[in-house]
Each structure stands twice: as structure tokens, then as C-alpha cells.
């Protein structure tokens, strides 16, 4: 959906997808270093234009990479589909422990795909599961995510329930609150507060995406503000295979999405071996409902 931009909303837009990416993204290297907060990559040919009338899909990845700690797993994986005609969108979260077939690497947790082959391989795995081509990937990591949110001037999140978790640093009472990048990261990482662990965490990351979209739309209503945001986003994003014209068009696509028309779901999962989760029986129906127009009619 969008890429975003942030106080520059651009960044956000770019990241809507990006944003959404919420914290994460993987890859240890280039994802976020210094002034680079995220990486946007085109993994398929073609160029989105305003005349496009087919669903557009983005993969947003949050890596567990942290300075001094390392890591390159995709601990936050979301497929975002946008319908350019209805201006509706759907976010599908994939819990990091979901067991999947990774081309060339056998069966493993979905978060390992990023370590094996970066966002492009994650997109191949997720696209294969859902049955869609994913032309755009966005990845960020802890620092990139924090910087992104802070550049936006913080993010207002309507916290749905009490969250208190010393591991992630989450400490929230329910209700709308304006959070710094660090606190949004804590909200996005908390899995110990919930009995369903990473499943609820994945859903909360979707809440961050929708919150970011709402804020971006509210703060960037004019063309000048959108151009300034795009410039900020571009300066802090490693962009591969996408020009500013396309980024601008994607931004416009994202800005047309009504946050009230965004569905935020997590794939159904069941018990697997060890800590693995198996893709649940209802997933095939969910994907079939989603892939034709990026919206859900029966879920």
C-alpha cells in the first residue's frame, strides 16, 4: 500500500508498506544503517500507474537485526494488498514460526527465509502460499523502524488492551495514545502479554500499519506536503528498481485507502512440530478470498 512518508509522510508511504513493515525487516545488512531506515525493492517487472486496475501487493518485513546483536530473520511478515478501484486494503500477517516450504532450503520457519535469501525469497514463499505475485517488498529493522516513526513525529495508536511485558518494554493501558518510535516498537514486539503469543503480536503490527496510514492521510493532504514527505522517505530508503515517479504513484495509491476499509487479519495456524506452527486448514479459503481483489468478502 503505500509507502509512506512521514513527517514526512513519504517515508511512511513508501512505507505504508514500509510502515507497516513495522519494525522490521530483516536483513542484516543494508536494511538499515546510518541514514537508511528501510529498503524498498521491486521484485517483479512492470510499473504501477494510476491506470492500474488490478490489486497491488506489498510484502512488509520487520527484521530482528539489532546493532551489536545481529540477526536477519523476518520476525514480522505481512502481505498487504490494495485494491486501486475500491480503495480498500487487506493486511495478512504471517506468524514468524509458521512452517513453510522454502525453495532450495526445505521446510523451515517462515522467518528463516529472509536469512536465506532476503526479501525476494520471502516474497516468493508468501506469494506461493497465497497465490499472488508480490512486486514490491519493504524491509526495515529495529533502528530503522524507530527512526521512521520518530520522523513522523510519533504515532497515535489506539491500544486495544492492557499490555505489560518487560521483555519488549511494552507498558500500556488501553486507549489512544501518541507514542515515540521506541514505544511503537515495544507495542509491535510484545508477545508475552498474550496467550496466543506471536499471533496476537502479528495482529498488533497490523494495527500499527493502519494507525500510520490514518496519520499520514491526516497530515499530508496537500501536494507540497506529499512531495516533501516523498523526498524525506527517499533520502532514508534504499530503493532498488523503483523510480520516484513510481514511488509517487504508489504514494497516491496509499493515500486513497480509507483506514476504515482496511482489514487486518492473521493466517489461521495450528500446532506443528516443536515451536513450529502449521498453516491452518482455513488458510486456503482465506487466500482464495483475498487474491482476486485484495479484499475479503467471506472472512
Amino acid at each position: 500500500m503505500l509507502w509512506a512518508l512521514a513527517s514526512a509522510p513519504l517515508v511512511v508511504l513508501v512505507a505504508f508498506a514500509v510502515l507497516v513493515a513495522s519494525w522490521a525487516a530483516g536483513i542484516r545488512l543494508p536494511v538499515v544503517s546510518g541514514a537508511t531506515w528501510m529498503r524498498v525493492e521491486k521484485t517483479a517487472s512492470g510499473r504501477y500507474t494510476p491506470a492500474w486496475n488490478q490489486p497491488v501487493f506489498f510484502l512488509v518485513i520487520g527484521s530482528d537485526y539489532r546493532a551489536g546483536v545481529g540477526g536477519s530473520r523476518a520476525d514480522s511478515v505481512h502481505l498487504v494488498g490494495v485494491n486501486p478501484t475500491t480503495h480498500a486494503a487487506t493486511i495478512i500477517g504471517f506468524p514468524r514460526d509458521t512452517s513453510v516450504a522454502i525453495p532450495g532450503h526445505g521446510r523451515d520457519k517462515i522467518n528463516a527465509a529472509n536469512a536465506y535469501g532476503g526479501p525476494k525469497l520471502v516474497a516468493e514463499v508468501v506469494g506461493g502460499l497465497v497465490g499472488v505475485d508480490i512486486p514490491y517488498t519493504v524491509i526495515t529493522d529495529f533502528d530503522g523502524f524507530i527512526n521512521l516513526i520518530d520522523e513522523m513525529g510519533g504515532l497515535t495508536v489506539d491500544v486495544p488492551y492492557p499490555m505489560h511485558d518487560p521483555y519488549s518494554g511494552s507498558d500500556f493501558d488501553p486507549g489512544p495514545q501518541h507514542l515515540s518510535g521506541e514505544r511503537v516498537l515495544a507495542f509491535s514486539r510484545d508477545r508475552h502479554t498474550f496467550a496466543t503469543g506471536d499471533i496476537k503480536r502479528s495482529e498488533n503490527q497490523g494495527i500499527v500499519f493502519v494507525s500510520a496510514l490514518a496519520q499520514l492521510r491526516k497530515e499530508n493532504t496537500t501536494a507540497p506536503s506529499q512531495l516533501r514527505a516523498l523526498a524525506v522517505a527517499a533520502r532514508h530508503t534504499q530503493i532498488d528498481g523503483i523510480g520516484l515517479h513510481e514511488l509517487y504513484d504508489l504514494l497516491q495509491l496509499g493515500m486513497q485507502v480509507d483506514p476504515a476499509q482496511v482489514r487486518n487479519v492473521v493466517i489461521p495456524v495450528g500446532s506443528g512440530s516443536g515451536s513450529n506452527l502449521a498453516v491452518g486448514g482455513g488458510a486456503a479459503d482465506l487466500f482464495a478470498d483475498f487474491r482476486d481483489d485484495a479484499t475479503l468478502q467471506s472472512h
Partner: protein
Amino acid sequence: MPRPRPPLTVATAVVALAAVAFGAVACSSGGAHKAAPARVVPPEVQIPAGPVDVARAGAGGDFTDAQAAEVRDTVARYLSGASVEPFSRSAPPSGLETVFTADALTAATGVDRAALTDADLPGPTANPKLTVAPVAITALLDANGAPVYASATIDQQLEAPVAGGIVGVRRAGDLVLEPCAAPGCPDGAFRVRAYSILVQRTLPDGTTTTTAVKK
């Protein structure tokens, strides 16, 4: 035997003919008076320069004075061809192919005609008065410092007496322009590819508000 026509009857006919002739002249004269709007002179469109902001996707590059002037020239052609001339002369919009990209032109003269042009208003009976606020420009430069897009913020007011009252037009919003890449484009020219416009019109029979957005 035919009765001689009384002289008075002849005189009456002469008077009647004269009256008809005079009437024709009078009508003709009246028509010429109604054509007075043809004497209406459209005001000259001059675009005051406003602030120019440069948003850089890379480390360098400038949006030159000449580039800003090209943007303002396009804005001037837009206001003239879509608003001032059509309203002043009760004529269709003209020259907009040098203002919009092909895609935007289709929308501006089609679904968005009511907001983008003033071609369908009552004709003025005296010279319109035009006020244009300074146009602020925000230019987006790519990593190499080349312009990708430029927004121009417009605020235009046009007013003139018409039969039965006064017509007032206030048009405000943003145009998004890009360097023209079409064949035959003059070097350095910009074309409008997107817009967000709000128009409020005061007419003898009421006030209307019209908006149009093209991404």
C-alpha cells in the same frame, strides 16, 4: 369601377412602412447594444512569484529561477485558457493542450470540466476583475538533482457583472506539474499531471462549490 384610394390611406401606409423601417433600425441598434459583451476585455493573467521550496531526494540540486518561471508560465496559461478567456468571451476553453499532460487534459476537459474551467457561466457585461495570489512552488528533485515534480499552489479570484447580478469565482488548490516529455514540447516546459481544486462560485441565483481531484 374601382374606388379611388383615399389619400389618407396612402399616408397611413407610408407611415406604417416608415415605422417598420424605423423599427428594424431600432432592433438592429438594440442588437448591437446586446453585443456589448464583445467589448469585454479579458484581464491579463499575471502570476506573482511566491516562495519556492525544494525537496531533495538526494544530496544536491537546485530548482532554478528559470524552472520556477516555466511553472508559473504554465499556471498562467491554465488560468487564461480555462478560466479568464472562456468567462470573459463566453467561449470554450482553449490552449489547454499546452497546459496538461494528455491524461490530465482528458479529465480536466471531461469529468472535471466544471471545476477546472469557467466556460459555462453567464457572460459578463463589463470587464472582469482578476486577482491571483502569489503562487508557491514545491519542487521534488531526484537523487541526481533533476526535477521530477513541482507543485503550484493557486488562489484565483475572478469577478464581473452579468445580467441580473454579479458572478464571482474563487479557485484554490494545488497543481502537480512535471517536466514535459511529449514530442514537440519546448525545452524546459512543464505540464500539469495532477490537481486538487476547489471552486466556489457566486452566481445571480446562488452559490456553488465544486471540487475535483486527479491523482
